[in-house]
């Protein structure tokens, strides 16, 4: 066991775990942030995508020792906290766009899609559908056929889907 210091969604988090524990398990099991999903556990599906120091990574492939002192963003960190108890959380524009275009069906891929899309937008990505498709090429969706997800990201990037 070693103590690792992470920043998760802006707040410091300290975990005392084996260094080879997957960041995915640290988030889900040790920090109870179950928004990040496990699909394949081997880097193929992107359901576990989180941002590590701003870059999208598969949390199932990152041992927590490599995330020490890192800045981690998960799907839980997208919406701004509700302004008062009981009030609805203020969704990230990308989450709102998924609702507009119908970008989520069963939802298992959605947290990873949102994080990959957020990284693309944060890097200044535009509404070009080909570029968006490249940005989410590491995220599988078995429900939507991708079009509505691409349209949601394009919507936020400033174009008409």
């Amino acid at each position, binding site marked *: 066991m070693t103590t690792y210091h992470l920043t998760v969604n802006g707040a410091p988090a300290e975990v005392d775990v084996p*260094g080879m524990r*997957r960041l995915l398990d640290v988030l889900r099991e040790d920090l109870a942030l179950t928004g990040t999903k496990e699909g394949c556990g081997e880097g*193929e599906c992107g359901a576990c995508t989180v941002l590590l120091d701003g870059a999208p990574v*598969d949390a199932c*492939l990152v041992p927590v020792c490599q995330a020490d002192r890192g800045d981690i963003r998960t799907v839980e960190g997208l919406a701004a906290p509700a302004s008062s108890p009981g009030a609805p959380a203020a969704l990230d524009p990308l989450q709102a766009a998924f609702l507009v275009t119908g970008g989520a069906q069963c939802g298992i891929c959605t947290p990873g899609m949102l994080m*990959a899309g957020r990284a693309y937008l944060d890097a200044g990505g535009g509404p070009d559908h080909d570029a968006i498709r490249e940005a989410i*090429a590491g995220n599988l969706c078995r429900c939507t056929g991708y079009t509505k997800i691409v349209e949601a990201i394009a919507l936020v990037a400033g174009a008409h889907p």
Partner: protein
Amino acid sequence: MSPVEPPVTSPTDLAAAYAALADPVSAAGRARPIAGGTDLMVALTGELGAPPATVVDLWRLDSLRGITLDGDVLVLGALTTYTDIRRSTTCGEHLPALVQAAMTIGAAQIQNRGTLGGNIANASPAGDTLPVLLAADASFILGSVRGEREVPAEAFWTGYRQTALAPDELVLRIRIPLRSGREMRFRKVGTRRAQSISKVVLGLAWRDHGEMPDTTGPPGAWRDVRLALGSVAATPIRARATEAVLEGRFPTPETADLAATTLADELHPIDDVRSTAEYRRLVAARIVHRLIREAGGW
């Protein structure tokens, strides 16, 4: 299916990493290095064989990062990621084929973590950068408690998933000599654009006689031809018979036909889950034919 969590150390300097790797083999087995983890973390599931007993994390070894020019040699640290390669103007200018290879590997999540050193040490016959490194006459600087040594890419992959690395040795740097007048092409054939393992991957390099200051002869003839392929044998290989056919020739239709038939004869790939031997042979021959046609402008 909970993955195992072997003990890990995260050294911040090479000497400590060497020492951790050289630790006498414990009952559980020797320590394995982890770089970006995109191959090694999958091994923790135990589905691909015994997972490592202990792990040495290389990620904090900043001396193994960076892309620089050392005279007319391009030097890449082993921890250079595919994203680093894609963003590097030095690579873009001097070795665009490597940038193209990096762009085809996995997708963004894999490119942000996966390293060039990991691709080399993992020694998959389908490793997409490996044909580029072979075609570019790359060599690798290896290091251990015993010091450093240089091994040419040609001598590095010794058998299926086997390398010239000693168990306690690291890939430190990749050195690629830049040659005047050298052209290089990269092609990968997979089932889809992203996240797919190659059915055939190749790098083709040649020097245009007319642009080589150190020789005389008609411009346009090919010299120093290198044709390297992945996913067609137990290791990445050079197709020497095809190289010999191309050496000194012009990129004409006759040359293309001859090279394609020579290559189809020379390759002995296997059938596996990703493709068939016949498909691989035909596709490799056709790609080379097309690259020669494009170079010849006909």
